[in-house]
């Protein structure tokens, strides 16, 4: 039951984009087209879920026993950066089709703060291994959902008659704000 609560909470109630403001840069950057948004969404889901598992082991098997918890930020970002690099190499060798679909988005993920945010929050919330993976998976699904929704809206906005000054990013931000109001309707669900 707790796993289900974590999943619902990370996807809808505490959506990482709309309620916690993590991953705004890629959220605005790649949401202009539905196709790119989907590619980025899959890549992020993959990386976050894997990163949640690996950082859990690093925290509990290396940092805690050695008493060097203060190195958390430094170690985690290095792990994420090398994980992203490794996945890129692995996919390029094994599956060219998949690489074409999401390869270009992989390097961008290192500076996507959702990844570092989720891994640090997992440790702060004192999640168990399974819970940490669930929360990572839920967070990335939430990010995916937000990205797809905004890219759908932005594709329509291109045809709409928007005031000159608001064209581009300002109107995207305002749309995101309205979506965020809609998402705040989920609060109290868990």
């Amino acid at each position, binding site marked *: 039951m707790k796993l289900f609560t974590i999943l619902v909470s990370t996807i809808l109630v505490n959506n990482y984009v709309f309620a916690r*403001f993590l991953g705004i840069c890629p959220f605005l950057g790649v949401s202009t087209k539905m196709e790119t948004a989907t590619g980025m969404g899959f890549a992020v889901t993959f990386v976050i879920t894997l990163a949640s598992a690996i950082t859990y082991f690093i925290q509990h098997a290396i940092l805690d026993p050695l008493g060097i918890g203060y190195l958390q930020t430094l170690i985690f970002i290095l792990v994420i950066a090398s994980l992203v690099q490794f996945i890129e190499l692995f996919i390029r060798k094994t599956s060219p089709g998949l690489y074409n679909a999401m390869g270009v988005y992989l390097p961008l993920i290192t500076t996507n703060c959702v990844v570092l945010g989720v891994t640090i929050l997992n440790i702060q919330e004192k999640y168990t291994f399974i819970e940490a993976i669930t929360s990572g998976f839920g967070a990335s699904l939430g990010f995916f959902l937000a990205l797809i929704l905004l890219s759908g809206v932005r594709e329509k906005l291109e045809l709409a008659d928007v005031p000159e000054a608001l064209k581009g990013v300002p109107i995207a931000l305002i749309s995101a704000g309205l979506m965020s109001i809609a998402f705040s309707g989920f609060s109290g669900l868990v």
Partner: protein
Amino acid sequence: MKLSEILKNGIFDENPVLVQLVGLCSVLAVSTSFINGLSMGLAVIFVLCCSNIVVSLLRKVIPDTIRIPAFIVVIATFVTILEMFLNAYLESVYKALGIFLPLIVVNCTILARAESFASKNKLIPSLVDGLGMGLGFTLTLSILGAVRELLGKGTLLSGTAAEINVFGEGFQAAGIWVAPPGAFILLGIFIAVFNVIMKKRKAKAAE
């Protein structure tokens, strides 16, 4: 480029938040009040200046192929120092910034300046660039914080001794402006207004 120009460049022409649109996560999240915005801004100025100094000094030592991981390590080191310092001496700021303090590491403003400026320029220009970009970030963040606070709580400078209740006691503030949706909408309006101002200034300069 003259030093004063580098400074002006960071605050106006290439303002990291309003023009380059980087580091938006922390902008949206911690701009709930003027004081929060200001403290986040100062934290970013510290990390940005220190990392620009170190990257600039090491620019001939760091091999090109591994420069990005090297920059990240430099930035993460200063963020960790700042985190430990705030935790020890300024507990309230540490609590207010929360998860966004370690996340300064992935604030793209800092990595972008290391990559595009400090790794190609001498020490003093790099330091000034860090200061300019940091000031641009801080100014935007504190103004956004002040506006959100005024609309959402009806106060100015809350959290300090000089707190002012602008609209008097009975004022019903619209809480949405301090909630997440307000941040998105206000930042959108800020960018639109800034674009209009910059366009007018450019048109004037061209005449």
